[in-house]
């Protein structure tokens, strides 16, 4: 009985939906996290009576045929790259991006990772690194006697050192942009990798047309809306239940058949 298999594709799809939603909720407080959305599509149809087939020799045709679908599949889990809310942290090495762009991070294997998580630290060599100790590109090294760190909207990193009152410019943070940032490959640890679907990165300084600006002492929160996620979760759960009812009903019909004699 086909209804059994159709309903099982429905249950599978809703399971995926719940997985996506629960991952969003789990990352509600992850800095720079971008939520996912499960996208579904119906599966192929079988023609039992083809539209347009002739019904008589005089040329009459079937206006509307009979098509039976075969269920549903998850077509994509697309990433929603909208801006998350920006929260004040007071920490001078926290940097939020307002607008487009990603920080570029050198990963231990030499590849470049991209992130919106601007909670940076200084390592034992004085370099600007992520919380995992990966260096932020282009490399910025702070002198040992650094006193005050200012990162302005355009990404210029300025410090005062020792007893001096003169402001010293250490370097310039840059941002990378992609044609299709939703096509980036998430590798966990708040890092993304470039893919064929995302296109090559374009790098420029913050504040350039099309690039966001930086905001020191702030962090970008996840763009997860808990109310929307919970209502999605309820919808997915109900859909799962309805599909399981179909399986039960199809089973009842089958048992009625097998009890015929």
């Amino acid at each position, binding site marked *: 009985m086909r209804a059994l298999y159709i309903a099982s594709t*429905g249950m599978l799809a809703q399971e995926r939906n719940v997985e996506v939603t629960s991952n969003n909720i789990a990352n509600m407080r992850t800095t720079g996290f971008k939520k996912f959305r499960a996208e579904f599509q*119906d599966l192929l149809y079988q023609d039992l009576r083809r539209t347009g087939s002739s019904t008589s020799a005089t040329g009459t045709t079937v206006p509307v045929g009979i098509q039976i679908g075969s269920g549903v599949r998850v077509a994509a889990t697309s990433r929603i790259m909208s801006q998350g809310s920006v929260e004040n942290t007071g920490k001078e090495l926290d940097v939020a991006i307002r*607008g487009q762009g990603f920080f570029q991070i050198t990963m231990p294997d030499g590849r470049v990772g991209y992130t919106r998580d601007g909670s940076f630290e200084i390592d034992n060599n004085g370099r600007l690194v992520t919380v995992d100790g990966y260096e932020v590109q282009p490399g910025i090294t702070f002198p040992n006697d650094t006193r005050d760190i200012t990162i302005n909207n355009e990404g210029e990193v300025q410090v005062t050192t020792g007893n001096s009152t003169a402001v010293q410019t250490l370097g310039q943070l840059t941002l990378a942009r992609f044609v299709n940032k939703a096509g980036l490959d998430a590798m966990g640890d708040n890092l993304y990798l470039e893919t064929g679907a995302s296109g090559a990165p374009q790098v420029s300084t913050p504040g350039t047309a099309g690039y966001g600006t930086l905001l020191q002492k702030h962090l970008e929160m996840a763009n997860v809306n808990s109310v929307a996620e919970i209502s999605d979760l309820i919808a997915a759960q109900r859909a799962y239940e309805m599909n399981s009812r179909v399986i039960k009903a199809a089973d009842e019909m089958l048992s009625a058949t097998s009890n015929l004699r």
Partner: protein
Amino acid sequence: MENSQLIGLSRQMVLRRKMDVIANNLANINTAGYKADNLMFKEHLMPVARMNEFQSSDRKLSYVEDDRIAHKFAPGAVVDTGNPVNAALNDEKSFFVVQGPGGERYTRNGEFDINSQGQLVTSDGLPVVGQDGPILFTTEDTNISISRDGLITSDRGEVGRFQVVTFNDMQSLKKEGYSLFAGENPVPVDAPVVLGGRVERSNVQGVVEISRMIQVTRSYTSLAKALSQVSELRSNAIDTLGKLQA
């Protein structure tokens, strides 16, 4: 076999198909732009051997067969997705045009994305057809927005315009799966109402489908009972009539 059994069987066969259609609707209850189907039945009259000498003549037998699939085009709820290139159509009968492998196809599923070439595509990667060919974004395109008349703009200016079509005979549209409809003779819509950043959800009503499902299972099981009664009747008849009175 006796006619009553054949008639019951014809009904059971269409009920199973109706169950398949209901299962497909419920499986797609969260599929964007999905339109619910309903299987329509019709009476199929089967003539039998006539004997008009009796008081009442034999009547034609009334079988049932599935006749057609009716697509329900009522709009689904429109929800905000936060993806600026998603789009929903705010009416019942217009469609976005996408370029399928076998020609132009039509969809209500506005879960569009941008691919590596900057082209606006469906979640399967099929290009969305604009009024002036494919809709292409460049790296300079920021703050993408879609106006109500289907114009896509960014900070760079106009990017493209959705091609929106409708059909005179909506029921003749054929579902191809993957959220696509195939149809002939599309009619361009002059003033479409496009909602950017939103998608239209499935128009499947769970309660309606579940109650249809109950109806189907109940009629199926009652038919099964009727069939077994007919069978019992016949075996009784054979037993009784076949007894030889010594």
